[in-house]
């Protein structure tokens, strides 16, 4: 691969200064004179009906402008389809304040709008509500029967079975079967959902929204309220964490726009932390994995069945069981996926949706099988290594998982592992080592970008994508600077604005792949124009050169192999009288090339835990994660993404659980003190290894995307290490200390 100036080098975030000085503004931080505040009143029951709602006391408070309820709120659109956003699933989306019916805990039932936040909050506490409550059903495990998941939304393809898994399992030398369960998790990005709707003198809206796609929010708002795109611009320069929760517009957006249009005022609505638990979440799942193997350890049958929760109104699906058909070589596979409708809010994509949970079950089962076979867990995986993706019947575009296993194991010291569970201790601490595999997709979506190079040497590149902490600003600046051979300081990247070229939802690990390709293409188009101009210069050393013969570096266009034959980019523009060059492109995936291959990222995760023998306290002392994710654009921010994924995996294994009281259908720990996520003292030695793959199938950049892969497999590796430490297998996640005693 050619030498690079920026790509593959650790570059500090270009938006770092804004973030450490407090200059970076998030959706709920755009203040304006005359802004009023909306405060959401949440339902106190989970299922039933509002029989009476009295807002008179709230309205009597000075400073209260209006209280919207189902009795007086407008109903701007009638059909479900108007409420369907780009990430909507099959069914009927929530229509806030449309009816007295209550379908899930903390459903929004009123919006109080007042001059100040404090008055709105106070008045919200004065709204009197009488309900007729019914007994809700929220326990997935109470009746483990569901219905076949529909081919609901794009992305979910019902997996194909192969061979005869039932028979092969029965005939297998060694059989293993177990049931795994994990509870719902809530994204809990640290920034709460917020929308600030500014109304100008003509009544046009400028909406600052917390979202992973400004275009998706705009689409939703224009459809529901019958506005033109010009009347509803959505802006989102910084997002305080998404993890999937920003893939669909949340109800504060609807409520803020509704109030702004009704009151002809600029309005802000911010949810409380408690209300963040009324949104979409990672659904609880109940899974059964059955593995059949020969004495020597060759997999002969894999059966994976999952039951997952969804709401009454919508059929949320995610890819849970399919991974079991791709991970290993096995000729007999049966995969089944069921849904059960419960009285909960519709689940949503949450970081590595489906894979985080499906691979958790499969990779725990593989570990259990290894002990049954008396085999090293890593050896079992290598023995069943999938050279092709049997699920899709295609080769992988690239797959350096073997190298991940090797480098990860070497770094971790896996070869020194004593295979016997509960065999290593330090005083009262039991020490265990576990490992697991991870897999995710490497996708590319259609994306547009524009670039503008001015004669002063400044390059402004723009695409309406998002940076939810993923490092989009920096990665795009790197790609642009590299393509045109400019210093990165000369590049400005703009995003999060519906007036910019359209980008896909920021999710699924496809942003660098999709938007990065568009950025590269737009800059290349400028490069071609520059080259044409450079050839025209008097005494140009490039006169006879073809575009393939030249390179852009150090602000110059130079002949490859003879860098002294070069012209300055700025001089070229000056001498030809060009003030700026602007190019806009839409980059499409090369479907014909891509469809012949399975495109995936892979990981190998190794974990060391210590468990207090008497108290059951668990500490993850060490994690090594080796990642095969194609080409790494910025190792600095890429490492951070993987580190974050590891922390999420530890969290999934040990901490996170939205605890429901099934009598009332309410979440009991709906705050950040009782909904546990790791704090600094929970996180110790984490190491990331990137095993680069050179893959020109996934996209021209060769980058596969890293947002999810860092999480997949981690929770299983932690659980497997706990088993190795204690000899006790916990199949009910999270693994809290009480389950070890």
């Amino acid at each position, binding site marked *: 691969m050619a030498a690079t100036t920026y790509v593959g080098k650790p570059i500090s975030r270009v938006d770092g200064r804004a973030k*450490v000085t*407090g200059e*970076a503004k998030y959706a709920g931080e755009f203040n304006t004179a005359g802004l009023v505040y909306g405060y959401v009143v949440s339902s106190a029951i989970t299922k039933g009906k509002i029989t009476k709602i009295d807002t008179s006391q709230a309205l009597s408070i000075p400073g209260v402008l209006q209280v919207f309820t189902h009795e007086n709120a407008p109903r701007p659109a009638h059909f479900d389809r108007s409420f369907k956003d780009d990430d909507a699933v099959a069914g009927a989306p929530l229509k806030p304040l449309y009816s007295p019916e209550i379908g899930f805990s903390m459903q929004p039932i009123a919006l109080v709008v007042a001059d100040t936040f404090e008055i709105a909050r106070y008045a919200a506490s004065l709204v009197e509500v009488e309900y007729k409550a019914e007994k809700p059903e929220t326990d997935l495990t109470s009746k483990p029967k569901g219905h076949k998941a529909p081919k609901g939304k794009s992305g979910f393809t019902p997996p194909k079975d192969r061979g005869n898994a039932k028979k092969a399992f029965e005939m297998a030398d060694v059989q293993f079967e177990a049931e795994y369960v994990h509870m719902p998790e809530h994204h809990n990005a640290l920034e709460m959902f917020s929308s600030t709707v500014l109304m100008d003198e003509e009544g046009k809206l400028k909406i600052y929204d917390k979202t992973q796609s400004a275009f998706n929010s705009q689409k939703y708002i224009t459809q529901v309220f019958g506005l033109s795109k010009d009347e509803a611009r959505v802006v989102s320069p910084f997002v305080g964490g998404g993890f999937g929760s920003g893939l669909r517009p949340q109800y504060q957006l609807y409520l803020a726009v509704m109030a702004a249009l009704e009151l002809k005022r600029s309005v802000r609505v911010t949810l409380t932390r408690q209300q963040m638990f009324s949104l979409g979440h990672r659904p609880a799942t109940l899974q059964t994995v059955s593995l059949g193997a020969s004495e020597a350890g060759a997999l002969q049958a894999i059966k994976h069945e999952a039951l997952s929760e969804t709401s009454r109104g919508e059929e949320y699906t995610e890819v849970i069981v399919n991974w079991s058909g791709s991970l290993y070589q096995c000729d007999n596979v049966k995969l089944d996926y069921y849904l059960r409708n419960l009285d909960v809010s519709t689940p949503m994509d949450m970081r590595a949706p489906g894979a985080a949970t499906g691979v958790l079950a499969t990779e725990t089962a593989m570990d259990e099988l290894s002990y049954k076979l008396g085999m090293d867990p890593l050896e079992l995986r290598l023995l069943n290594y999938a050279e092709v993706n049997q699920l899709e019947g295609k080769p992988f575009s690239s797959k350096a998982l073997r190298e991940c296993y090797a480098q990860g194991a070497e770094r971790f010291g896996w070869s020194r592992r004593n295979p016997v569970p509960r065999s290593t201790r330090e005083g009262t601490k039991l020490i265990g080592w576990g490992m697991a595999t991870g897999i995710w997709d490497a996708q590319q979506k259609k994306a547009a970008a524009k670039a503008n190079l001015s004669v002063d040497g400044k390059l402004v590149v723009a695409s309406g994508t998002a940076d939810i902490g993923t490092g989009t600003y920096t990665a795009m600046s790197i790609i642009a600077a590299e393509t045109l051979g400019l210093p990165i300081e000369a590049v400005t990247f703009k995003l999060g604005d519906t007036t910019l070229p359209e980008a896909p939802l920021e999710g699924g690990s496809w942003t660098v792949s999709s938007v990065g390709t568009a950025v590269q293409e737009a800059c290349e188009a400028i490069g071609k124009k520059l080259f044409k101009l450079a050839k025209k210069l008097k005494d140009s050393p490039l006169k006879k050169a073809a575009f393939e013969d030249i390179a852009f570096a150090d602000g110059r266009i130079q002949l490859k192999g003879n860098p002294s034959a070069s012209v300055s980019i700025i001089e070229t523009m000056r001498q030809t009288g060009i003030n700026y060059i602007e190019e806009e492109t839409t980059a499409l995936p090369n479907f014909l090339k891509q469809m012949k291959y399975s495109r995936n990222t892979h990981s190998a995760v190794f974990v060391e835990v210590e468990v207090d023998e008497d108290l059951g306290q668990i500490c993850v002392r060490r994690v090594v994660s080796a990642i095969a994710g194609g080409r790494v654009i910025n190792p*600095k921010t890429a490492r951070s993404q993987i580190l974050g994924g590891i922390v999420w995996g530890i969290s999934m294994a040990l901490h996170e659980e939205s605890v429901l009281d099934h009598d009332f259908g309410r979440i009991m720990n709906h705050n950040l003190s009782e909904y546990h996520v790791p704090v600094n003292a929970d996180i110790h030695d984490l190491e990331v290894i990137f095993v680069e793959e050179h893959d020109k199938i996934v996209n021209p950049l060769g980058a596969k995307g890293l947002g999810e892969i860092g999480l997949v497999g981690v929770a299983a590796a932690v659980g497997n290490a706990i088993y190795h430490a204690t000899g006790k297998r916990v199949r009910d996640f999270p693994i809290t200390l009480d389950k070890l005693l």
Partner: protein
Amino acid sequence: MSSKVLTKPLGDVPVALPPLQRVTLTINGAEKQLEVAPWTSLLDLLREYLDLTGTKKGCDHGQCGACTVLVDGKRINSCLSLAVMQEGKEITTIEGLAKGDQLHPVQEAFIEHDAFQCGYCTPGQICSAVGLINEGHAKTTEDIQELMSGNICRCGAYVGITAAVEQALKVCQSNAQ
């Protein structure tokens, strides 16, 4: 099965709002005099009345640390303090740490170690780190991890945060000598 549920305020509801109170604070070196409701938190005063939105609201319950500011050099959760309780105090927020273009060593270290992703917890983490350095209790990496555990980072940037605080602690100690 169905049942009747009623949610209503407890006791008599005062209809008149509490009168505004005057409060004088020194914020990032500048004296500010404001008339605020007594129930306005220091956090809301900063964000909604002074446009100092660098201080973040992540839970409003003192559970996440995003709202950490320095009051007379000590770190506090500004969501747990009413603005009027801080009469006469010197408040430093994230906007007040840099000296002109010169970032505070903690800010520098956060960029260098990529100690954040989305950036929303970052101002709180940085103010907390400055408070930690002022306290002078942290001697080891484990101390830093423990003493920084009041600030949640949902992106999971703890490895970078610990490294950044460790570096900044050394820089501040050598600057002080």
